[in-house]
């Protein structure tokens, strides 16, 4: 099932990178597609991530720094990172203080690609989702 495949990708990333405590995929409209957040409210997380991604991308454009790779907040008790998935979804990573950010940057590329493909294959507008149309 696609649901299981998406969760499997999210958990595979969590297994590879020490310090990830939760993951979620949300739409750009702020709705949860799949969540494995470990107790964090997924609806609030989705809504905030969508807004945050839009702001981060506008910031990158505003300062002329090109394509946004990720946006991250660091707090005294951990960190949250978001990545754009195609043009209509966002991947949220919640981590603890020891999150291996170097490995996350490396491993997230393959995970994003796999999740993007999974969503595109099950999206009503298929290739358009990937921005190919």
């Amino acid at each position, binding site marked *: 099932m696609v649901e299981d495949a998406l969760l499997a990708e999210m958990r595979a990333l969590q297994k590879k990178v020490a310090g990830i405590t939760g993951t979620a995929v949300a*739409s750009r409209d702020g*709705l949860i597609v799949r969540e494995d957040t470990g107790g964090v409210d*997924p*609806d609030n997380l989705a809504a905030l991530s969508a807004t945050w991604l839009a702001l981060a*991308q506008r910031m990158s454009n505003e300062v002329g720094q090109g*394509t946004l790779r990720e946006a991250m907040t660091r707090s*005294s008790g951990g960190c949250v990172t978001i990545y754009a998935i195609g043009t209509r979804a966002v991947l949220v990573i919640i981590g603890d*203080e020891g999150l291996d950010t170097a490995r996350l940057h490396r491993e997230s590329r393959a995970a994003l690609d796999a999740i993007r493909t999974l*969503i595109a294959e099950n999206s009503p507008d298929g290739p358009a989702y990937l921005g190919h149309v």
Partner: protein
Amino acid sequence: MDVTDLADGKLAAVLRECAAARFTGVLRVDGQPGGTIHLADGMISACETSGAPGLEVVLLRSRRISVADWDAAFTAAAVSDREMTAELIDRELLGAGEVEALLRTTLADAMFALVSGEVDGWAEASAADCLLPLTPPARGGWLLNEAARRAQVLASFGESAVSARDRVAAAPGTAQATRVLGPGQDELLALADGRRTARDLAFARGRGLYETMLQLTRMRASNVVVIRSFEAAPDGAEDDRTGAGLPRRRKDRPAVPRAAEAGRRGLTAGIRMLRPRSEGSTLLDGT
């Protein structure tokens, strides 16, 4: 267990070479968990790794020091270009002996995490900033022997030994049992949800990795906890859906808005909502 059994002994050999050459700088270790070892004159002053909580995590998570006090000390140290440890002592947040003891403990724990993990490679680099160096630094040989001793203690439990990457859950029926748990075990049991690894639990409680692994190992030997595969761990969607695939209202959470409910009716329904925006997003893809 001999030191050479840890991480195939590769890292141990490198550290011996560094000690013999009185190397000053950092050793960047690639692997799982990997990390950075700071060396001064061949001795080890710090080890930063995602595999074990450092002093900041230990102090803040245990509430030994408040976040506000830590931040104030950090800012003052940065402004005056002083050592963070000196700032913590001057502000009477920690005693001088306590700082050294805690740094030595967290350093030994970090080295244990590093050398008992997987080492893919390493590279020497010039000295880098280190927030909390141990003064005087520790001998690499002592740290390696200590790591080997810890690994040996865990190995003595045989199949009950819990590794840093094992995901731990309460054993079925443990919640109902009238078992008397040891100090800290009830807290561990409450956090052991099958999603967290031993390493995650160490960070969540602000306790050492070895201490956590040993405690979990004892609990496993007493059938209080079990090792669970990540695939068997529950995820939020399963909790939230009824058999009919509809969202289940949680007692501890207000009803989700109608639009959000639609988003929780399964992946296919969720993906269908990922339609192109009417205005056509011009924002670039991050992949």
